[in-house]
């Protein structure tokens, strides 16, 4: 191990150390939320700075199986932001239910290390380890509310289908390894180019491998028809966990797609293009149609997150059809989606501060009168999720659609499907607005007071949701660099 390797993996190593440090803090001051949050937030800020500094120079470590480039930097910073926001949103929900903050934070930080490993891995095995490191903490978090039957049920479903899909994915990796004799992404890409050159059709082995890999990944991003675990896992989990699960592992799985499909399987791009087109169309449409009928906001947002997977897949399809803008759009959308979705879930969590409050639509009735500020922010997040300008969600959608229009052919049809879906989605997002502003409150609940951490996190999410819509220039440049790194 050379010194340069250590420098390159410094952000990842620091994330592991930070998780350990939080454990130690909890040992010293058991059961105290304040120190945990302070240490983890300060640590994450340091981690972000370290990532920025290390990311200045492109480098690889451990014989090319770990690489630090613009894409890694962008994804790492996004993951760090997601985790930091989740930590801000959690205490208000966990404390009244007697759930420990320290364990929550530590599990979350370990998930972060997994996500960071995925974004940096240029070796299929490292990729798989990163994936597992990211999703196993997710299973724990889903069942974090041990005494709650729904939480346990959701966690078991999530765990069973998650492990199942990991196995399928690993099986696919084995096929690829068998054909190419390597697990290194660049070598795999090279060998596949040689193998497919001149061949009219995919060899059965490669086709099998591709099918297994696609299935495994489709489970992880919750693409239709591999989405069945999502609604139960999302609805059952404690609300801050749901917020995290709907963005963190999803962006992580997309990072995996970028490293695996876009880089390693670049040679068979045209073969997976058509798969992605079909997945995108079904995912958007089904996610939205089912979301239309939901009366529970958490479950509705679970289905809507499936639909958002579909929009991101449109960007991937545009890239597969030869448009680098598709990749940029995918990354932009990922960032925009993270902040607006986290914000929306944070508000649900805030409303559920008193144990026993459900996430049904009725909870939102008359919110505009009870807590006007919270209602206005929720409206902003919902408008952004709908894709109404000038918000982050709008620009993300416009970007993905632009790439799809450029790609032409079947992908351009995806653009039309995407906007029709966005119009249908307006119905269920705006239904929440109807409840908040146009219905009277059910019962005369006194509004709970919300912690300063929650407000701080909400303002960050709000600012990003607005800024990414009004001044998209800086992030455009960043995702442009990140996309070029592939």
């Amino acid at each position: 191990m050379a010194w340069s390797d250590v420098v390159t993996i410094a952000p990842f190593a620091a994330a592991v150390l930070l998780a350990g440090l939080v454990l130690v803090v909890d040992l010293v001051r058991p059961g105290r939320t304040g120190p945990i949050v302070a240490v983890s937030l300060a640590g994450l800020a340091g981690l972000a700075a370290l990532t920025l500094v290390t990311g200045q120079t492109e480098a690889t470590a451990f014989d090319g199986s770990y690489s630090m480039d613009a894409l890694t930097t962008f994804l790492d910073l996004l993951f760090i932001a997601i985790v930091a926001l989740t930590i801000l949103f959690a205490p208000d929900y966990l404390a009244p239910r007697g759930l420990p903050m320290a364990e929550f934070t530590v599990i979350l930080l370990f998930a972060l290390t997994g996500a960071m490993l995925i974004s940096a891995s240029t070796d299929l095995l490292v990729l798989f380890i990163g994936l597992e490191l990211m999703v196993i903490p997710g299973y724990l978090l889903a069942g974090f509310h041990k005494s709650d039957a729904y939480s346990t049920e959701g966690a078991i479903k999530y765990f069973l289908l998650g492990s199942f899909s990991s196995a399928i994915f690993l099986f696919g990796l084995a096929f690829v390894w068998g054909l190419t004799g390597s697990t290194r992404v660049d070598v795999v890409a090279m060998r596949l180019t040689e193998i497919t050159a001149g061949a009219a059709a995919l060899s059965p082995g490669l086709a099998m491998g591709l099918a297994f890999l696609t299935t495994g990944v489709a489970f992880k991003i919750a693409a239709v028809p591999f989405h069945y675990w999502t609604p139960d896992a999302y609805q059952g989990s404690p609300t801050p966990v749901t917020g995290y699960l709907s963005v963190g592992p999803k962006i992580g799985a997309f990072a995996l797609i970028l490293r695996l499909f876009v880089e390693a399987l670049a040679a068979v791009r045209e073969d997976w293009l058509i798969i992605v087109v079909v997945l995108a169309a079904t995912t958007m449409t089904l996610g939205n149609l089912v979301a239309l009928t939901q009366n529970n906001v958490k479950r509705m947002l679970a289905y809507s997150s499936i639909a958002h997977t579909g929009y991101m897949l449109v960007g991937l399809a545009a890239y597969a059809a030869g448009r680098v803008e598709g990749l940029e759009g995918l990354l932009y959308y990922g960032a925009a989606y993270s902040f607006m979705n986290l914000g929306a879930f944070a508000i649900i969590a805030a409303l559920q501060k008193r144990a026993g409050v459900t996430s049904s639509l009725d909870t939102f009735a008359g919110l505009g009168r009870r807590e006007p500020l919270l209602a206005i922010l929720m409206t902003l997040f919902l408008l952004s999720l709908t894709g109404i300008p000038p918000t982050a969600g709008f620009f993300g959608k416009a970007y993905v659609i632009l790439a799809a229009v450029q790609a032409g052919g079947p992908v351009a049809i995806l653009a039309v499907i995407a906007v029709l879906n966005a119009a249908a989605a307006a119905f269920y997002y705006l239904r929440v607005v109807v409840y908040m502003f146009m219905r009277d409150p059910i019962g005369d609940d006194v509004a709970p007071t919300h912690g300063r951490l929650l407000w701080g996190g909400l303002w960050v999410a709000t600012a990003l949701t607005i800024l990414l819509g009004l001044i998209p220039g800086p992030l455009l440049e960043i995702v442009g660099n990140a996309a070029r790194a592939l």
Partner: protein
Amino acid sequence: MQVTDVPILTLIVFLPLAGTILIALFPQNAARPIALGTSVGTWILSLFLLLGFSPGRGGLFQYVEVASWIPAFGIQYKLGVDGLSLVLVVLTTTLSWISILASFGPIKTRIKEYMASFLILELGMIGVFVALDTFLFYIFWEVVLVPMYLIIGIWGGANRIYATIKFVLYTLVGSLLMLVAILAVAFAYQDANGGNWTGAFDFEALRAHAGTVGFADGLQLLAFAAFFLAFAIKVPMFPFHTWLPDAHVEAPTAGSVILAGVLLKLGAYGFIRYALPLFPDAAATYAPLIIVLSLIAIIYGAIVALVQPDLKKLVAYSSVSHMGFVTLGIFIFQEQGLQGAILQMVNHGLITGALFLLVGIIYERTHDRTIAKMGGLAGRTPVYAAVFGFFLFASVGLPGLSGFVGEFLVLVGAFDFSPLVAVVATFVMILAAAYLLWMFQRVVFGELSDFLKGLGGHLTDITPVEILTLAPLGALVVVFGLFPGLLLDLIAGSVATVLGDVAQGTAIQIALWP
């Protein structure tokens, strides 16, 4: 093109935003004066715009402001006005303060939210008219949607939630497809320009491209269809009009005034500004179909209005009919037709806005709008009856009042285009007289109805504030009726430019059986 030192258009667009922020900061009872002050301020600024405008400079844009916004795609913050948009901006600012003043009485709950929504609505509407970048245009177009959704949904009638969601969904389907078309057009421009995004969203660059090289036939047909859908839903043209009666009936009075006065004009403006100049070939191809749809709207709106039992619904359907004249005038591609269409847009805004105010005034007192329950208002509220009659005659198209000029010009253009079309359209003017005057007779003349008698002292005549909201509209109706040249001079340059653009269009042969 002139670049002014004072960014007056930016001031006009964003002054309402400043008002919104002030409303948010100050307590409830300050909301009304702030909103009125802001909207009057915006109105005065827009009058300065009118004074400094030089109609002699043809269809060129004036007061142009350009700033780079998203350089990666050549998206600009570009504003500017020509005669057409200027007239509509002033119409918007005028109706905005009138609507806000007219809301003082009827809106009693959540005044802060209402006034803030209204000012954001004003921002969006003005923005649509002054944007010269297709991306920016789209953003303002969507910004209009949310406050109107809230205004109908929160302060509307009993069935308001159904109406407001229908309004949003209809509009969104059209506008999102338009977004795809905007992006496709930008990409086509970028592609033709050697991969350079500069100007890909710039309206003037796109128009120049359309006028010289032209967009490909296939793209024109699809993009025009998408733009058409967005604009036709907004106008609304038959058969996309079904959201309008619901929205009008449920909206509070001021919401109806803005809906009829300005929002419907957004669609017509979109046709003239974007659809015709950018896709002249597709416009020529689709024109016969659109003319037929316009005629259907004119006839259908009038016939349905004839049988409406509800005052507001009657005025709403008359809007469908009147806006049919606008689309007819636009798509016959002929000077008088286009002039008439633009005049009709302005006049419809003034007259129908006033009619909705008048319906609102009677509703405030009776909490009912059923025509059958009315009767004999002339005896109890003579001033109201007189004002109502004045605007009804303007709507019918009495010569000397402004409604006449627009419809007359459209008919002249239509006659030039095809006498048959003109005859059909003229026949409908008789229908219009029938449904409006029959309604007037039932509401105003005869014995005071039992229902109105039961109200006793509540049925008071029009108040000074209500007069104040109606007087400017009435004055403009007379002025434009007697001196339509005032408006025609302003829009002459725009009309000539657009007609020059469409003159280059040749219908695309569509092979249905390849």
